[in-house]
């Protein structure tokens, strides 16, 4: 489903907070703040997760020179049970809150909803974004942190990061959301939780294709098409899918993936980064900055999410995936 925003809501401020390991990220210099303790000096990983979200929102209000009372909506999501880190952050922030779950695609789905609220006139300022904390998410979906299981080369490393933006009325000095596509849920029967890229690539393919078709655009109309956290292997699969559907190699150069690039070529991270915070951290720091400086004029951000739970995996269900896309422009 493609939405075209007539009022072109703008992204007025952005903030990314990340954990200590994210110093190794190639996007490190774009982050607003990096903490030394991945628990943010809290007692549990989940509390640290929550604190990270609050910090990102505080940076946003500071940057926009507003306070929490001026913000109408807070849209956030993460991957922990019932999204408690977001819920608890919302409790501290005291802003009207909508919790969203699109797995790792929440970074984009939250921006879509807040843009809709802005377009409706229901919202002056809305904070949207997503976060993930490595230790809290790994234990949720896979094994205990210190468990010595071998991960295959397709496995990805959940990034510790929170990326948030302030969405408000159109302002030509800031990047604007002109269109969005809410993705379908695609499932090609993949069951391997250590190969998320392979499960999610078809969803990204589906959403990007739908967006381009409906908007009557081609790859070359964009400076960049960036997927969320397909990882190195998933990106290759997606490129192959597009190549088979007739996209030329030079056009495929425009297709990049935040997760695949996040930790550079460091092999310790296997196929790259993943998690809701991965796409949020790259989109809401590097991409926004590049748009603001005018290096990019038009980008398509397509975040993918694997909609599984540990329970569904153990019951032998395959992994349904989704992908949401937003089209950002800079005048």
């Amino acid at each position, binding site marked *: 489903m493609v939405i075209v925003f007539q009022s072109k809501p703008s992204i007025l401020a952005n903030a990314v907070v990340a954990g200590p390991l994210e110093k190794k990220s190639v996007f490190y210099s774009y982050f607003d703040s990096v903490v030394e303790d991945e628990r943010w000096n809290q*007692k*549990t*990983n*989940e509390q640290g997760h929550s604190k990270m979200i609050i910090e990102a929102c505080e940076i946003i209000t500071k940057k926009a020179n507003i306070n929490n009372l001026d913000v109408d909506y807070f849209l956030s999501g993460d991957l922990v049970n019932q999204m408690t880190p977001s819920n608890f952050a919302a409790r501290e922030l005291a802003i009207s809150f909508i919790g969203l779950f699109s797995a790792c695609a929440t970074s984009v789905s939250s921006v879509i909803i807040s843009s809709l609220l802005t377009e409706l006139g229901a919202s002056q300022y809305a904070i949207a974004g997503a976060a993930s904390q490595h230790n809290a998410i790994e*234990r949720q979906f896979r*094994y*205990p*942190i*210190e*468990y*010595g*299981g*071998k*991960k*295959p*080369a*397709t496995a990805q490393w959940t990034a510790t990061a929170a990326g948030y933006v302030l969405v408000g009325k159109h302002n030509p000095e800031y990047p604007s959301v002109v269109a969005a596509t809410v993705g379908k849920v695609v499932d*090609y*029967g*993949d069951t391997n939780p250590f*190969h998320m890229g*392979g499960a999610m*690539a*078809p969803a990204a393919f589906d959403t990007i294709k739908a967006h381009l078709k409906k908007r009557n655009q081609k790859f070359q109309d964009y400076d960049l098409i960036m997927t969320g956290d397909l990882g190195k*292997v998933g990106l*290759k*699969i997606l490129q*192959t*899918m597009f190549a*088979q559907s007739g996209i030329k190699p030079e056009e495929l150069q425009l297709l990049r993936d935040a997760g695949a690039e996040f930790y550079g070529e460091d092999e310790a991270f296997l196929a790259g980064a993943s998690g809701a915070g991965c796409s949020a951290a790259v989109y809401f720091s590097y991409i926004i900055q590049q748009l603001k400086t005018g290096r990019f004029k038009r980008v398509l951000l397509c975040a993918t999410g694997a909609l599984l739970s540990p329970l569904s995996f153990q019951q032998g269900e395959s992994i349904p995936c989704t992908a949401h896309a937003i089209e950002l422009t800079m005048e």
Partner: protein
Amino acid sequence: MQQEQYKNLEQQVTPPTPYLKNALKAFFVGGIICTIGHAITYFYIIFFDFTENTVGNPTVSTMIFLSMLLTGFGLYTKLGQFAGAGSAVPVTGFGNAVISAAIEHRTEGIVLGVGGNIFKLAGSVILFGVASAFFISLIKLILVTIGVVQW
């Protein structure tokens, strides 16, 4: 695109599992861990009053103690990533499964967290160990009773 078509494409692009490399790594690391265990049996036999029959317990406990140190200092994950089954199959891997779960769930308290989750991963090993011991001894008892075999 059909599901099967996609499966093909995915398989072509995904790097294949390095079966031989994995097997060799598992062999060498597993062999080394067992050799260390073997050395510990000699240690207990020579310096303490243990025979080959009774030395199993102290050896296994010592190996699990070493596993606790490696797990706690975050080294067992590195070993596991390199060795695969080579570090999972020895009893140190069982120790790692129990200890990592215990460390992980400390934040949920000692009773509900550590107590409730300590066998989250290793529980299946205990289940299958005890259940198979039960059924095998049952089978053997039946065979002994009908006079096919002797104890």
